[in-house]
């Protein structure tokens, strides 16, 4: 069960159980101490009385003892005393009990018994001890502890009520503590998710309480500042590189365009036009290399838009249809329904275009472009029926400027698959090369909503 695995739930449960145990220990201790105190007091009183009566007995025998018992039970002195003197035949000689309690045996340890005092119509709990005398006579000395025990009962009931309230409070305290921790950590998790989804400006809210959560927030924010700075540096570097290389290329192109206008012969025009095309190809390579760097660094997530990938695939297949036909291929879209996803439309389009272009350059037969949803993921694939790429060569094929022997004779810079892999990474996913038996199967797999988890 997910809840039981939750650290915060376990923490809350631990807090609750500890508070419950604390309340239980407190209740038990109070009960024990109260009982101990009542027993100790009753024992002290009965001891004192027993000692006085035994003195009477030693001084004047059974008669003096009987007198002593009667004296002790006078209303002015009784104060809850219970006494019973019986002879060897269990005949009552003096005392305020009707008969000797059968459960109390002389020389036994003192016990608390429920007995009726003479003239009382309610039984009472009495702490009593028995003293054996000569000729089988016995003396019971005791003290009524009914009211003390009743008080203890009331105290226990009050304490059980208190514990019930304490349990409720403990549960509330545990729940509050768990919620507080969850809230403090949730803001950190939300920030991390937002950053992973491309919002580099997000920071963990800090309250300057200087506790451990605050320290965690501050540390994460410092880390995010550093990442932000590195991303900015990368953006400046790639922008600078683009600008510094595009300016001379702009001059080169404008010079060639003017030369093209001035050309008299067709041959010269064709040569200059080829030079312009080569310049454009060089620029396209530079653009792709920069795009790969930026995509790998996660730059561009703020450009994500919600689109239907099925529509994108169908559109691309329609664009490539005539070219495929002219080159002896067949290209089809394999779509079962809408495939909604948040993507960088331009980069994903370029990546898919590269994969289709590769299939036409190195593949054969039927090219299938498919898109489908699979749980939280979307899967876009391009398959062909050409020679494919041997498993041992797949890593090389994905490397920037990596070119396999079969590709050396064809135009290209070896950036197509590398860009597709970088775009998959930007979308929090991956690119997989597989066997289409026969042919190559290239799969882009990523989260439909990249905010749900990023690479």
């Amino acid at each position, binding site marked *: 069960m997910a809840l039981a695995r939750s650290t915060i739930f376990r923490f809350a449960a631990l807090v609750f159980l500890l508070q419950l145990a604390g309340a239980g220990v407190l209740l038990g201790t109070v009960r024990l101490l109260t009982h101990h105190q009542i027993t100790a007091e009753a024992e002290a009183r009965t001891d004192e009385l027993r000692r006085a009566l035994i003195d009477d007995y030693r001084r004047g025998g059974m008669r003096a003892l009987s007198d002593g018992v009667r004296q002790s039970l006078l209303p002015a002195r009784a104060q809850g005393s219970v006494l019973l003197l019986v002879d060897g035949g269990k005949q009552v000689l003096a005392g305020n009990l009707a008969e000797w309690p059968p459960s109390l045996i002389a020389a036994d340890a003192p016990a608390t018994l429920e007995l009726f005092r003479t003239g009382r119509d309610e039984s009472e709990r009495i702490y009593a001890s028995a003293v054996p005398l000569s000729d089988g006579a016995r003396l019971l000395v005791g003290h009524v502890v009914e009211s003390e025990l009743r008080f203890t009962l009331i105290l226990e009931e009050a304490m059980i009520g208190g514990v019930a309230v304490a349990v409720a409070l403990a549960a509330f305290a545990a729940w509050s503590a768990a919620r507080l921790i969850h809230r403090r950590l949730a803001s950190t998790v939300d920030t991390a998710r937002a950053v992973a989804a491309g919002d580099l400006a997000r920071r963990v809210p800090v309250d300057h309480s200087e506790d451990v959560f605050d320290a965690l927030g501050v540390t994460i924010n410092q880390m995010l500042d550093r990442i932000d700075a590195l991303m900015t540096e990368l953006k400046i570097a790639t*922008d600078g590189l*683009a*600008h510094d290389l*595009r*300016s001379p*290329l*702009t*001059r*080169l*192109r*404008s*010079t*060639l*365009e*003017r030369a*093209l206008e001035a050309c008299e012969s067709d041959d010269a*025009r*064709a040569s*200059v*036009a080829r030079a*312009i*095309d080569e*310049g454009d190809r060089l*620029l*396209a390579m530079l*653009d792709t290399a920069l*795009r790969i760097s*930026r995509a790998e660094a996660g730059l*561009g997530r*703020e*450009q994500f838009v919600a689109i239907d990938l099925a529509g994108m695939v169908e*559109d*691309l297949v*329609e*664009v*490539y249809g*005539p*070219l495929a036909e*002219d080159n002896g291929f067949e290209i089809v879209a394999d779509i079962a329904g809408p495939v909604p996803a948040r993507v*960088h*439309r*331009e*980069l994903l*389009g*370029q990546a898919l*275009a*590269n994969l*289709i*272009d590769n299939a*036409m*350059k190195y593949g054969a037969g039927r090219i299938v472009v498919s898109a489908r949803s699979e749980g939280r993921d979307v899967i876009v694939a391009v398959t062909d029926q050409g020679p494919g790429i041997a498993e041992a060569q797949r890593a090389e094929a994905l490397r920037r400027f990596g070119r396999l022997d079969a590709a050396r004779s064809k*135009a290209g810079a070896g950036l197509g698959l590398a860009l597709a892999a970088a775009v998959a990474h930007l979308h929090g996913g991956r690119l997989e090369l597989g066997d289409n038996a026969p042919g190559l199967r290239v799969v882009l797999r990523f989260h439909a909503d990249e905010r749900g988890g990023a690479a």
Partner: protein
Amino acid sequence: MSHKILVVEDDASTADFVATGLAEHGFVVDRANNGRDGLFHATDGSYDCIILDRMLPGMDGMAVLGALRAAGIDTPVIILSALGSAEDRVKGLEGGSDDYLTKPFAFAELLARIRLLIRRAGNGAGAAPETRLSCADLEMDLLSRKVKRAGQVVDLQPREFRLLEFMLRHADQVVTRTMLLEGVWDYHFDPGTNVIDVHVSRLRKKIDEGHARPLLHTVRGSGYRLGQDG
């Protein structure tokens, strides 16, 4: 009356190329080589179009554009920039520019975009939308979605219709592959080898085959042109 264009570009070679080319096509051109001078010129409101480099010394192109728009000057502006990612384009267009062209560019493309912006500004709001487009004996009815060449119906696929519509709207101008990708397919990426060429070549077959004078021409090193003379 010739149109006035302001070119704000710090790279002398690029500025020369653009200014000379525009002058050859009948435009009156003023130049500024930094943002402050560009803003000073632009604020007199006498230009039909402003070509503004994004990275300028002193005052950045986007800042010049912001100041212009804040001052209520709505002259069409084309941003020229070495930064060509989707993000850069969106920033440029959101910053108030009417178009965004990435360096290096084909002059023909710049020219076509300038003309389109000037025409749009001239039409203004309230102008009746066009229902027919034509070039020589080629006619397109936008309401019935019918195309005729010399009175004969030409059967076109929906995409071919849009491609021809784009070419007709830019008749007698060079349109580059980039312009077609953006205008017809709404693609801001390069689908690679010959994809556009094949579509244009199929369209050419349908509108020119069997006719003495071809209308759809390839312009070497630039793109295509729909017009009467080769």
